[in-house]
């Protein structure tokens, strides 16, 4: 069984978010980066568990420039066998999906795993787009994944409950919380990662159909207004007129 895990580099969760160039670019100044937790904790670790139980190989793939190599090495330190980086600076989820799908066309894998979303743009688009480009099934928000023969069983989170899906392989599956538990790389893994292959492949030409016009930060939290418990009318008035929730 050949597992391909799509990994992303995202700003660390406590990073201060700011924009430059007239609010059209993310300001990377002073930002620390991490491996996207959904990719790392759930997609990658579940792939490793399945490989350990049933054999196979786990390859991680990233679309990005050399500045992503540190998080790729972390994935190798956690246990991936090898890594592929498609050498381009993608501006859209569709470009990422296009690059990965083109790679898979010439390097077939049985299961393509990704996190349910990245924690920066949170669009959760890449998995579905890869499946579409490859014309194979996509199952999103998997919280449990098992493999049997040439099919996968995925338990997925749905509104008000869960759904269990059986899908023929190859397929793309996105991983949500619960699919696995975080593995912290150990020192030996960190050292072994240096000797594992990281193959850098050129990107295929791609032209984005959409461009980002601008970013806006959410409004800051306003101060808490304290209402006297005796003054319920005022509370109702504020909820109606200011908060507009009643």
């Amino acid at each position, binding site marked *: 069984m050949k597992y391909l895990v799509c990994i992303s580099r995202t700003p660390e969760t406590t990073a201060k978010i700011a924009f430059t160039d007239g609010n059209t670019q993310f300001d990377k100044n002073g930002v620390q980066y991490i491996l996207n937790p959904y990719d790392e904790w759930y997609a990658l670790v579940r792939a490793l568990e399945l490989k350990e139980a049933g054999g196979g190989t786990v390859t991680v793939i990233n679309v990005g420039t050399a500045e992503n*190599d540190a998080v790729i090495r972390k994935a190798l330190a956690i246990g991936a066998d090898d890594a592929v980086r498609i050498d381009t600076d993608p501006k859209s989820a569709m470009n990422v999906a296009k690059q990965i799908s083109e790679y898979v066309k010439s390097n077939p894998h049985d299961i393509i795993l990704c996190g349910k979303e990245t924690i920066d743009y949170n669009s959760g688009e890449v998995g579905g787009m890869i499946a579409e480009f490859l014309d194979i099934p996509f199952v999103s928000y998997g919280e449990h994944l098992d493999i049997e023969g040439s099919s996968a069983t995925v338990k997925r989170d749905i509104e008000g409950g869960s759904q269990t899906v059986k899908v023929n392989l190859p397929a793309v599956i996105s991983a949500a919380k619960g699919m696995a538990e975080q593995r912290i790389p150990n020192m030996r893994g*960190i*050292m072994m990662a240096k000797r594992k292959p990281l193959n850098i492949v050129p990107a295929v030409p791609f032209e984005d159909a959409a461009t980002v016009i601008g970013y806006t930060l959410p409004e800051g939290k306003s101060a808490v207004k304290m209402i006297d418990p005796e003054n319920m009318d005022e509370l109702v008035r504020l909820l109606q007129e200011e908060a507009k929730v009643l």
Partner: protein
Amino acid sequence: MSSVKTDRFQFHDHYLVEDLLSDDHRMAREAVREWVKQEVSPIIEECSEKAECPKHLFKGLAEIGAYGPSIPVKYGGGGMDEIAYGVIMQELERGDSGIRSMASVQGSLVMYPIYKYASEEQKMKYLPKLGSGEFIGCFGLTEPDHGSNPSGMVTNIKDDGDAYILNGAKMWITNSPVADLAVVWAKDEEGKIRGMVVEAGSKGFTAPEIHGKLSLRASITGELVFEDVRVPKENVFPEIKGLRGPLSCLSKARYGIAWGAIGAALDCYDSALRYSLEREQFGRPIGGFQLTQKKLAEMITEITKAQLLAWRLGSLANDGKATPAQISMAKRNNVNMALEIAREARQIHGGMGITNEYPIMRHMMNLETVLTYEGTHDIHLLITGMEVTGLNAFK
């Protein structure tokens, strides 16, 4: 007052010292920090309060790779460099000096002398199992009447055919009550200091626990008592004779402490900074007052100096050029720095600073030990004094 809290620690690196480190170092730091947040922070206050050693962490420390990270992989280590070792110790001590002690004794004081001085058979017999945490080790040099003056030790061995007969006692031995083996230093019949591995269960060998410590309460400490213990001759390190043997181990451990103490200082500073921004008096955060800022500014200044000192020492150690005197200076400076910061941080926390809602008092009490063990604050000063004057002020 005991609670399981979320570890809100954030790293502080005012001079971007991290840029001087490699990706491996940063990954090691991140991994150990995560491990500490998951495994140490939720339990450490309670362990410390109850004076209980979290023994399950011996295995966890092995799994993360905290034992002998700079010892070759073949011998159960991590095959990393000295800076990686320092970074790991710093992150562990950010959690607790006692947890760091558990690891640094195993790596620097047990695995290192076996790696450095034992025969190949001894290395293969002990090191992989020490690296994997299957064996826990301890290190016996200090005696009840010989602390700063180890050369005066009375513990001794006498030749008895295929074995030596070991007699004596060692004091203040981290990990000893739970150890599977002890690296022990004793005088032979010529008065030369020899090192040897003494296995737990040997007849006449006991390791009673020392109770009543108000410092390093989550780390178990004991004695080593030897009454006519037969130590097979193959357990004695063949080459090394004299004080150089144990002192080389101490250099290794002191090096780790020079890095480790910064972790405790960072935890105190981080807590104090956050508290100063959340705690309001006179209608505004206390971090806005000049006297609080003086404390915080001086703390981060001292931490930054210590970070640079540790990094430079690590670079020298990687090149094989770090001298014992340089290690002494860094150990002395950085531990004292951490203790001073703990005291200042306690003041910023006001009354809350004396509770176990915050890590300050635990670090402060721990650091009192760290200031004294592995060469006291004063002894390290005399080492520097001797280095610069060429004159021995020890005796």
